[in-house]
């Protein structure tokens, strides 16, 4: 299998959690190729932020979208060619701030794409401002007196919106994350993976996550249990919180009629009059 790393110089900070995500994604793709999936049928979209640089480093096709809009773009790709597996990378500011509507609607529709949320708890690329997932009291350039908004809980938010696959990983547990990503991409329906990602420059959470993460023993049997575990105040549980099968959007909404070529279209319009 060819290398999945492009020639582009990597400019993530030394120790950035994005490296772990990048490794896990490559492991996931490698496994998919070994299972017989063609690389040319896997595409990505990304938003704007530190996470988005993965677009330049990961040597597969895709669209480096607008800030907040990559999940919408991913959905357009899926609707245009359902054969493609579409992986969208988003930051916490990107997918839960600027583009929250698209994230929630992708889940609501059960659109068959994957959203990998690089949750570093701040806006890294614009020098560490508070994000929708920053904790109360977080001090950044835009909140020097401390963040006064409570953060979203990404896992419970997406469960509520209707995502049929919801999971959480940690960028420093690469094999576990790769396994979750693989399940997510292979899931039929909307899959969401929150990745806890330390930001060495503005919010170094390695110690916190190394001490306070634990693997879910199994996928919780019901939403109530899942929600409780996802909100646990002491422990960041890692693993799959929900995995369900529901009807997927493109199979419901797309026309099943065969697409007509130019001369068929002309003939149709002539007959139609």
């Amino acid at each position, binding site marked *: 299998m060819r290398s999945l790393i492009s020639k582009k110089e990597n400019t993530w900070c030394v120790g950035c959690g994005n490296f772990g995500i990048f490794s896990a994604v490559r492991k996931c793709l490698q496994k998919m190729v070994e299972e017989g999936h063609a690389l040319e049928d896997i595409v990505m979209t990304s938003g704007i932020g530190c996470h988005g640089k993965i677009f330049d480093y990961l040597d597969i096709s895709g669209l*480096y979208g607008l800030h907040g*809009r990559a999940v919408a773009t991913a959905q357009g790709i899926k609707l245009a*060619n359902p054969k493609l597996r579409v992986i969208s990378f988003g930051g916490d500011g990107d997918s839960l701030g600027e583009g929250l509507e698209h994230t929630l*609607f992708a889940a609501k529709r059960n659109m068959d794409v994957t959203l990998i949320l690089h949750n570093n708890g701040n806006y890294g690329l614009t020098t560490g401002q508070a994000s929708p997932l920053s904790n109360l009291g977080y001090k950044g350039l835009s909140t020097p007196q401390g963040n006064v908004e409570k953060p979203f809980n990404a896992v419970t938010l997406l469960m509520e919106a209707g995502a049929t696959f919801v999971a959480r990983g940690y960028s420093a547990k690469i094999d576990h994350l790769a396994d979750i990503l693989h399940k997510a991409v292979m899931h039929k329906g909307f899959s969401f993976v929150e990745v806890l990602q330390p930001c060495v420059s503005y919010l170094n959470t390695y110690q916190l996550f190394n001490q306070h993460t634990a693997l879910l023993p199994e996928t919780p049997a019901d939403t109530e249990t899942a929600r409780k575990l996802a909100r646990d105040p002491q422990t960041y549980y890692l693993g799959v919180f929900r995995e369900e099968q529901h009807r997927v959007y493109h199979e419901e*909404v797309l026309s099943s009629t065969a697409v007509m070529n130019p001369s068929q279209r002309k003939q149709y319009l002539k007959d139609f009059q």
Partner: protein
Amino acid sequence: MSKQIYTVLIGGKAGEGIKKAAQVIAHLAIIHNNHVFQTDDYQSLIKGGHNFSVVSMSQQRLHNTYKSPDLVISFDKRSVQRHEAELSPGGLHFCDEADAESEKQIPLPITKLVKQHYPEGGNMSLASIAIFCALMRIPEQHMKDTISREFKRNLNENVSFAVEIYRLTSNMSLELGFKLSLEQQIPAKLYTGNQLIALGAWAAGLDCYFSYPMTPASSILHYLALKRDKLAVSAVHTESELAAINMAVGACFAGKRAAVGSSGGGFALMQEAFSMAGMVEAPLLCILSSRPGPATGVSTFTAQEDLYFALNQGHGEFPRIVASPDCFERAFTLASELLNLAWASQSPAILLTEKHLSESATNVKLPVDDLEDFFTPISDSEDYQRYQITDSGVSPLKFPGKGNCSDSDVIKWNTNEHLESGVRTDAAAAIVRMKDKRNRKQHTINELSKKYKRVEVYGNGESIIFAYGSTALELREAMKYHSFRLVVPVYLEPFPEEELAEYRGKSVIVVEHSSQPNFARFLKEKLEIKVKANILRYDGRHYSADELVEAIREAENA
């Protein structure tokens, strides 16, 4: 003296089925070989208020409706009061017996009969169809068949109610001075502008349409959604305009012909992604149907305030295409042309139109034979580079997941400035190279567009009048009564300078639906014309022929 043009106006509250009744009347006129033009004047509400629909019919081609109706059918007091004064000399005004205000109206027991014929509710607006059929001597059986076909709910009640109104009207033996029916065959199908835009784009390969409802563009979404299985097209109602256009660019990336549509407000939201289409070089068709602004403005009326907005859509520098259909046939062909031109140049294109064309209807023969075949060449390069530098500025295309890629193909579309590979860059020389490449497409687009009809000229009178979009329709109807030369740039960007060279520096009258003479300013900039007079209308209404003739005469004599 018999009339050449006959106009029917149906007025009443929203929710009473007025527009549908007018459509059926238009359809009846068409099958009796009359040309028709229908306009709907309605408010942004679902029940109550005052709505009216107008259908003009004639044995000649019509480009607009007339404002002095020969037949008014009023379903409430407000309609009686409002439209009595507009009635043409010798015209007839029917209303419910309870709403009649003077001897000028012909009272019918409409409400009473509705109660008699329907156990509950009832479809009052059918009375207008029955009155029309009776006056036009359309056989009763034909009316019954039409009503049975068009109004399937409460079928028996509908027919018995309509028959009673029909007989009451017939027994009055009224003379109209107008006859339907003529030997010549005329184009036999009624289309709105939006339907023609949708079909035109589809003829050029439209696969998916993404939109958030906004009047007056919504009916494109409705029409394509309804035709999903017949046309094998996808119409997706997204969570917002932002979602619509970002999805549409994604669909282009995957190799599908996609379009979005909205009005000014929706396009304001789509600006950033329109700019993205310029940057990633997505061949995106955008349909911008204008209404009076700013902001929410006047939702259900017509305007041309968005000319410069369309020309400058999206931030940053990149080639744009903007063109505006001057008639219904052009709505069809232009939508098709623009989608092809967008693909040939990998640039976003805007079809700029107005409520007056989008939502009015007329009988049209689809100019199917004028369509070109569409085709998208796919690169077979083994060392594919999405943004390969070329002389034309247009880079070869390749799409993932279409079976013509290999494992090593990497197709990267990028909203950041990029290298030929599609990978992001901020290197000075690379920025210049890529900007120059995109800018070269401007010339390419201009050359490619020359095969299309970029300027239309109607009439050959002394005065030169410039207009664009559906204002040209209003002027063509006025031309039947006053001679002038109407010059219509269909393409606004690229501007058809060569075709318009003869008008450079000329003194002209400019007609537009805006309070500021934007189109005149645009023409001054492009052609250094001298504006003899600006004829501006900005009350949301379209002009009638006589209003325009008066305004033009005044301008000529000034």
